[in-house]
């Protein structure tokens, strides 16, 4: 921020009301969320003020619970598969959208992005009806399928700017220098979009890891972590450990998305 007296250029000059607005915005957005980690360290099974004292008891309890580990493992499995598949599909889609003349391209992009705005409950019910009609038993596979639908638009949205941001003559230059399509992809295209691929993997993993609605409709006997939390809410005495688990998920998600944002923009500014 520039010093007082220096009014800066028209766009960059400091704007006091805007700063206040930004601070209020962040408070409204994040203060409710901050209550969760706060009470997860509270030495009482009741969520109420005043706070009773600091404890790690709830975290220790989580550590020794097998069902938590099983749910965690399920979520990581689903998340990893969803991240890999949606990113591969995202790369293929983004390359096709940016490199080929496709009739009705903007309509196609709109359709790919549609799951972002269609409520998850509609997709969840639709898939549940479809799968039960087809006689497919609910399992982690059906959850993975549901998560793919949710994650693919995020993968495409992350990768599209990477592909748009690079000069098609790079690929022509590679062909001109003697490399076929396969080698051109691995020696030029992939390294240039690599930060976008990493960002897409992290983002889609996080979304799948946190996703509840699809999992709610499509889970069989193996619960994912959000499903496990949902199940525990019935038992008041379990509530503090749910808060502890939620805090951990919150923390890991924040870190992953933060890294994804940083990596995804790498090399775009100075290109």
């Amino acid at each position, binding site marked *: 921020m520039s010093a007082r007296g220096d009014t800066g250029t028209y766009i960059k000059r400091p704007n006091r009301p805007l700063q206040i607005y930004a601070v209020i915005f962040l408070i409204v957005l994040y203060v409710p969320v901050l209550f969760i980690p706060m009470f997860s360290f509270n030495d009482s099974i009741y969520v109420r003020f005043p706070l009773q004292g600091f404890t790690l008891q709830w975290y220790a309890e989580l550590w020794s619970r097998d069902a938590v580990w099983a749910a965690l493992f399920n979520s990581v499995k689903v998340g990893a598969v969803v991240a890999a598949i949606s990113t591969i599909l995202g790369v293929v889609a983004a390359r096709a959208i940016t490199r080929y003349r496709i009739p009705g391209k903007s309509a196609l992009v709109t359709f790919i992005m549609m799951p972002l705005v269609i409520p998850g409950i509609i997709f969840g019910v639709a898939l549940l009806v479809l799968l039960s009609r087809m006689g497919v038993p609910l399992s982690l596979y059906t959850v993975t399928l549901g998560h793919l639908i949710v994650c693919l638009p995020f993968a495409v949205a992350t990768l599209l700017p990477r592909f748009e941001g690079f*000069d098609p*003559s*790079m690929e*022509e*230059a*590679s*062909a*001109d*220098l*003697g*490399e*076929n399509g396969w*080698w051109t992809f691995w*020696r*030029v295209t992939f*390294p*240039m979009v690599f930060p976008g691929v990493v960002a897409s993997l992290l983002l889609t993993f996080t979304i799948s890891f946190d996703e509840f609605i699809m999992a709610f409709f499509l889970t069989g006997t193996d619960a994912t972590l959000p499903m496990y939390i949902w199940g525990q809410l019935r038992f008041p005495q379990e509530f503090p450990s749910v808060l502890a688990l939620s805090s951990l998920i919150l923390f890991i998600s924040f870190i992953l998305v933060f890294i994804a944002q940083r990596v995804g923009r790498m*090399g775009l500014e*100075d*290109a």
Partner: protein
Amino acid sequence: MKNDAFISIRNVNKYFGSFQAIDNVNMDIGEGEFFSLLGASGCGKTTLLRMLAGFESTSDGEILIDGQPSADVPPHHRPVNMVFQSYAIFPHLNVADNIAYGLRKHKLSKPQKQEMVDEMLELIKLPGYGKRKANELSGGQRQRIALARALILKPKVLLLDEPLGALDKQLREQMQLELRALQRQVGITFVFVTHDQEEALTLSDRIAVMSGGKVLQVDTPEGLYEAPTTREVASFIGNMNFFQGTVRRNGSSEAAIETQGLGSIPISLEKVTKPDGAPVQVALRPEKFELLEEEPTGGHFVSAKMDKTAYLGERSHYYVTLDGKSEPVAVSSTNQFVARDDDRWKEGEPVWLSWSPEAVVVLDAD
């Protein structure tokens, strides 16, 4: 023109949908030649270059490179390399890796590769730059890296798509000289696309002037400038004055053209193929006129009036008006004897224009 053309373009057409980008182009490019495709944007010159590189197919006709038909050869199997307008330097690789990019299939040892890269860096006058990143380079340096990356593969033909367009004027002129010297040094056929006529004249052995997908004329720089065959070429390369005229043959060995503005000009018979009374155009470059204060005693001259003057330092441009011609005539002369303001022509002054019939170009009427 040599018979052993290195690149032969035969009856080539290219359509993008209903738009015809290349209209029945025929030309031969010799081995080791610096050949330019010159034209305004959208004239088809880049499309033709991309056809040579293999990025565009021909709708019909054929292109032979070193005697081989090229229609089914993909870009990565062609003995040609290209320098792109944007240079297309790979941003994730350093300079040395960029230059060595095409060597993967050559199965060379690391020291061999290193030696070839160093040789190239020497050639483009950037020794020691191998470890630099692409984004640390200036425009001129990127352009040289792009050249080195193509030349290291020892192509039979180097294609250059307006490689100097992005550089500022001073750097561009320096790079023109270097490019010409480099081409002589390596002896590879260069096909160079540009919209800058001065650049084409400076660099090329021969130039193809293109417009609307057609090749208007293929000639040496001198040929294009001194003996254009159409009005379009004449006005695209440099400035040109045009005069309407009529052929007058007296049956003898002499012919003349009766012009509007310049009177009757005797023309040798080989310059005029038209019959008596046929309408033609006479074209004369601005610098072919001489401005005189006094009426000359002999030769070809006409009286005129100074209309506008423009002082450009090394030379001056003048517009003079003639009786019998509505548009003013452009005249260009050096300022060799101009030292003070008084030495210059004043607007409104009567002057005499003198010229030599040898400088006259006869063109078909529009």
